């Protein structure tokens, strides 16, 4: 018991959310994460203006291919003579569309599934939970690869596959939160005024499990970035000519033996910094919203 005062202080209804946001903006790791992610978001939106060269423009003469970093090309040029800096900047776009969209899809589906299994329990829960368990026992990338082979690679395909792969993971977290919530008496009170199951799940319980959902979203976003990059590295991502970090590493890693490191290192650093940035944000969000 702390010395909390039970005085009826009237505060604006969203006081607690505001307080949480204020706490977030005071956390150094959140601000660092926000800075890192912010850079890449700016690159994704304004890439074409920021890039010093045309990211798609390849050089015609052999002399400007695979140039090391220099004043003219800070990150060097790749095997087609394209500016690595420009391609790294432009590459932020595809990953920052695919990863959040996939995570959002996974979160929405996972939350719905978690609510249904957690609220109804019984047979629905047993069947769905066992399917989820089976699903989770296969490594994520393998599942993704199999699905993408079946679907054929495309941006939408990648989004759907990553989203589907995340769904059971998120469903499990949400289900655990719902199991605790459904025993609270406000749920019984709703039943006593004869609310239907859907109302109880989505209007009564859902707002109370948004904390874990938000945390799960940010954590999954980090994984999604990593998975997107992995899939394009394996050749299951975007079209080969689009600037993309995973793809760039795939296309150039064979040249590492020849001492041409810059066309691999800079896209790799880009992936790493984005993942670290998202994870820093995820950690601070978890600290604030999960008490």
């Amino acid at each position, binding site marked *: *018991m*702390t*010395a*909390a*005062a*039970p*005085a*009826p*202080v*009237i*505060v604006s*209804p969203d*006081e*607690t959310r505001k*307080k949480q946001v204020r706490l977030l903006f005071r956390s150094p790791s959140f601000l660092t994460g926000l800075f890192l992610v912010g850079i890449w978001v700016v690159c994704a939106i304004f890439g074409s203006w920021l890039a010093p060269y045309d990211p798609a423009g390849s050089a015609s003469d052999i002399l400007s291919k695979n140039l090391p970093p220099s004043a003219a090309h800070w990150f060097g040029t790749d095997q087609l003579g394209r500016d690595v800096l420009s391609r790294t900047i432009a590459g932020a776009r595809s990953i920052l569309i695919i990863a959040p969209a996939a995570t959002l899809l996974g979160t929405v589906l996972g939350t719905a599934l978690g609510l249904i299994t957690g609220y109804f329990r019984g047979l629905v829960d047993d069947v769905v939970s066992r399917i989820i368990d089976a699903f989770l026992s296969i490594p994520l990338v393998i599942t993704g690869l199999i699905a993408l082979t079946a679907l054929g690679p495309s941006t939408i395909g990648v989004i759907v596959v990553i989203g589907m792969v995340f769904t059971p993971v998120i469903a499990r977290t949400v289900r655990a939160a719902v199991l605790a919530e459904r025993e*609270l*008496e*406000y749920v*019984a*009170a*709703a*039943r*006593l*005024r*004869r*609310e239907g199951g859907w109302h109880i799940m989505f209007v*009564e319980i859902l*707002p*109370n499990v*948004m904390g874990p959902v938000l945390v799960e979203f940010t954590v999954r976003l980090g994984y999604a970035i990593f998975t997107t990059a992995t899939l394009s590295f394996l050749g299951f991502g975007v079209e080969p000519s689009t600037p993309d970090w995973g793809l760039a590493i795939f296309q150039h890693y064979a040249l590492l033996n020849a001492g041409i490191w810059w066309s691999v290192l800079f896209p790799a650093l880009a992936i790493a910094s984005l993942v670290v940035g998202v994870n820093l944000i995820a950690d601070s969000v978890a600290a604030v919203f999960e008490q």
Partner: protein
Amino acid sequence: MTTVLTSALDVSDLRIDYRVAGDWLTAIRGVTFTVKPGESFGLVGESGCGKSTIAMAAMRYLPRNGRISGGSILVAGRDLRSMGEDELRRLRIKEVSMVYQNPGSALNPALRIDEQVGEAFQLLGASKTEARSRAAEALRRVQIADPARVMRRYPHQLSGGMQQRVVIAMALASLPALLILDEPTTGLDATVEAEVLDLINQLRFETGTSVLFISHNLAVIRKMCDRVGVLYAGRLVEEGPSEELFTDPRHPYTVGLLRCLPQRGVTKDRGALDTIPGFLPPIGAIPSGCVFADRCGLVQEVCRTDEPILYEVSSTRVSRCHFHQDAPSLPRAVPAAGTGVKPDHSIKLVDIDGVSKTFHQDGHPVYAVVDVNLDIAEGETLALVGESGSGKSTLARLVLGLSAPDKGSVIELEGEKLAPSIDVRPEEQVRAVQIVFQNPDSALNRRHTIKRIIGRTMTKLLRVSPAERDKRMAELLASVRVGSQYLTVRPRNLSGGLKQRIAIARAFAGDPKLVVCDEPTSALDVSVQAAILNLLARLQADKGVAYLFISHDLGVVRYLADRVAVLYLGRLMEVGSAEQVFGGPNHPYTEALLSASAEVEEDTRIRLHGEIPSAANPPPGCVFNTRCPRKIGEICETREPPLAEMEPGHSIRCHIPLEELRQMQSSH
């Protein structure tokens, strides 16, 4: 130790701050008191007054956002504030021990009892085998009958009362100079509480240890302590010998607290409970005058400008009030008149006929409610009492339709059968039966505004237009004395009392005929409890609603109930009017419950030993025979007595004839 200590705990001019959102706020100011060797000192006050903060400080266990910013704490003559980590650790091993409210979280769930209790002795230097034998001895000392069996168990395999005994055994391992008990019995049943309190008293007598006893429960403090300090908003407002202080309080806050408790002989129709108006000032608020001035009925100009000193009331007592002589004449905060309404028991509203509920746990039947027959008249309060696990809440859930009774059970409302599940009951019946839950924090959706909580209930139950709904909502909130400015607020921004008023308003939103009240005041402070009980009594008188009132607090039941039903292991053991049940003669179980409530004097009470048996495997014969202090012989173990009407309206399930019961129970 060769020197004779003058005090076990010496707190002087103590000041404690908490850091809240970056600012240091003062929670405890200038608190001074002494616990003498062998003495038991009580700290009382409502939640938020700083009781636990002082206890934590006496162990130097303040949370990271807390600090001692002034004064001194001496434990066994040594200054706690100047100690290093090592010295503190040795002090906690040897000199001071603490028992917390919740034994379940004080024990490590992964360690068996022998390891945990043994650890306490190993810390004192005993070898592993020696520690084990001393642990068994320690368990025997806290009256655990079969230490060898208990020592092999894990904490979750023990009941709450048993767990608390284990914690106490560990706390006393080092024969500490000071034992701090922070609400040690608050989570326990009254019967178990009584046993644990007896045990603490006996151990104190045996070991001579000093005790700092912290509780919000005035009756418990009165029984357990030699001296008492009353805390209000981080200030010690009154201190003195406990008997004197409780019979002749000299601070308006103490007077007010005592008046909030239901008094013997006062029932809802004959008198309203007094309350303390207003709210505790928020932490860190330092008023220029007396901390209690805003809520005090005796307040004068001087109280708002000059903070009173601790006036000496007598050589042993102090009170922080300018007008401590006048404190006993504190004017009432609410008029003394009761509702004046006595319900007519002849108009039957609810008929519970042969109701049973069997749960199935891993294929084994668990008999939660067994063949209960009860009726509730219009506008009357039927109280359900019994220990936890007696089936009170299960029975209430059956009436509400939240779970379905066994086949053959009949529950009727106004002569119409109630469907077993709420989902198939006609709207009229759904409206008619509602509930006020124990804990408003979990009963109100924390993401919804008050307007939504109440409005939605009205829309669903009454199917009214938005305009009509708003009109009714305003009337309803006025009737539970909640201002309309709270409509847009979410529950977490309300005090406990206001939250419970909202929960009551929700229960009344559809004009119910029966409201189940499941321990509606047990999560609240006494002053708030009094206001809520007054509100329930008045609403009942105004609207003619009947209550099925579940409570473990017999003082509250005595005040509010018209009739009382006593449940044990899902069976009805006794039912009668409140006068009959509180006047006796009683079923031996009821007798034990009555004597466990702390107001009864020591020598006249009977005690229940052992634990409530499992409902999956109830004892044969009378289910109470394993614990019955009045067991007469073999018949109790072989034949279950019928629930017999011993006098008009008063039924008891016991083999002992009424006259014999009367004799037994009046002989002490």
